[in-house]
C-alpha cells in the first residue's frame, strides 16, 4: 500500500480499499409541498451537475395512478431542482450523496 486508506473488519475482510469510491451523506430532508407544474430549488454548497453527486428524491404523497413518478430532479451549481408533474401537489423526501 503506497498511500490512501484501507479498513479491515473484525474478521479480516478489507471493506475499504485504496481504490474504493466512498459514498458520503451531505444532506437530507423534506421539501414543502410543491404544486403540480411548479418546482423548488434546494441549495447545497458545492453541488455540481457531474456524477460525483447524486440526489435521490421520492414523493411523500404520490397519486394512485400512472403519474406518480412524473417528477424530475436536476442538479445544478449550488442547488438541485425538483419539478412536480404528477398532477397533484406533494412534498418530496430527498437525500444528497457525494461520491467524488
Amino acid at each position, binding site marked *: 500500500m503506497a498511500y490512501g486508506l484501507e479498513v479491515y473488519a473484525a474478521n*479480516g475482510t478489507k471493506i475499504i480499499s485504496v481504490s474504493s469510491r466512498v459514498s*458520503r*451523506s451531505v444532506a437530507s430532508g423534506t421539501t414543502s409541498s410543491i404544486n403540480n407544474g411548479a418546482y423548488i430549488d434546494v441549495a447545497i454548497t458545492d453541488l455540481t451537475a457531474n456524477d460525483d453527486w447524486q440526489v435521490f428524491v421520492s414523493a411523500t404523497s404520490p397519486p394512485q395512478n*400512472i403519474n406518480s413518478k412524473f417528477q424530475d430532479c436536476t442538479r445544478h451549481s449550488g442547488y438541485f431542482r425538483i419539478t412536480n408533474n404528477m398532477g397533484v401537489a406533494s412534498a418530496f423526501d430527498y437525500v444528497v450523496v457525494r461520491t467524488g
Partner: protein
Amino acid sequence: MAFGIQIYNTAGETVIDTERGESLLYAGTAYTATANSTYPKNNWTGSKLILARPASTGYTGKTISRYSWGGKWALAQTGAAAALVWRELRAQNEDQLTPANYGLVIYKSGGASSSNILLSATDLDATAELVATGKFNSTSGPGGAGGYYQEFSMDGSLDPGRYYVLATNTQSQYAPGVRGSTPYELHLDYRFDYTNGKILIQNYFVTNPTSSSATSNVESRSFDWAIFYVINGGTLDNNFS
C-alpha cells in the same frame, strides 16, 4: 486546509475530508422480504435509502423497484422478484455510535459526539461502494416488449449477490388490463439478468406487454439511478456464493 484530514482514493476521489464534514454511508443489516407487505415495511426506519437485489439468481429477468402506488412501499406485482434482499444505506453520524477505545475515528469540527462522526472504522461491518450511476434517460433498446434501457455489466470475478440497486426513487407498475382495459407496464426500475451478468436500468412504458402487438415508449426522467457493491466483514453475507 488549516486542520483535520483529507484522504483520497487512487482515482483522486475524496474518501474523507474533515472540512467538508460528510459522513460515511455504509450498508445496514440485510433483510429478506418475501411478500409485498414486507418490503421494506418491517425493519425500515422510514427515512433511509433502500438498497435491494433479488434473493437468488433464480429471479433473473425480474425487476426491482419501489411500487409507490399511493405512496406505499411494496414489491411491484407481476414480473417483479417475489423475494428480495434489502439494506438501508445509512450515514454513520446518524447511528449514535459509541466507538471503541481503539481504531480510527474521524470527527468533523464541533467535538467528539456521535453526530460529528465522519468515519468510525471499528463500527464498520459492511460497506457499499458506488460502482455506477446515471439518469433514467436511455433511448437504447429493442422497443416493443423489450423496452428501453441502459446496461450495467457485473464483474464476472465478483459475487453477483453483492450487487445492489438504489430502489428508493424507482417505480414499476403493472396493469393487467381487466374489464377490457388495455394492459400496460411502467418501468423506471432495474432488471437483473444473472444469466448474462447484467443489470438493466429501464425507462419505458409498454402497452399490451405480453402480446405480439406490444408497443413501448421511452419514459425519460432526469433523476438519478445508482448501483452499489456491498462488502461484508463482521457479519455473514447473504450472498450467492
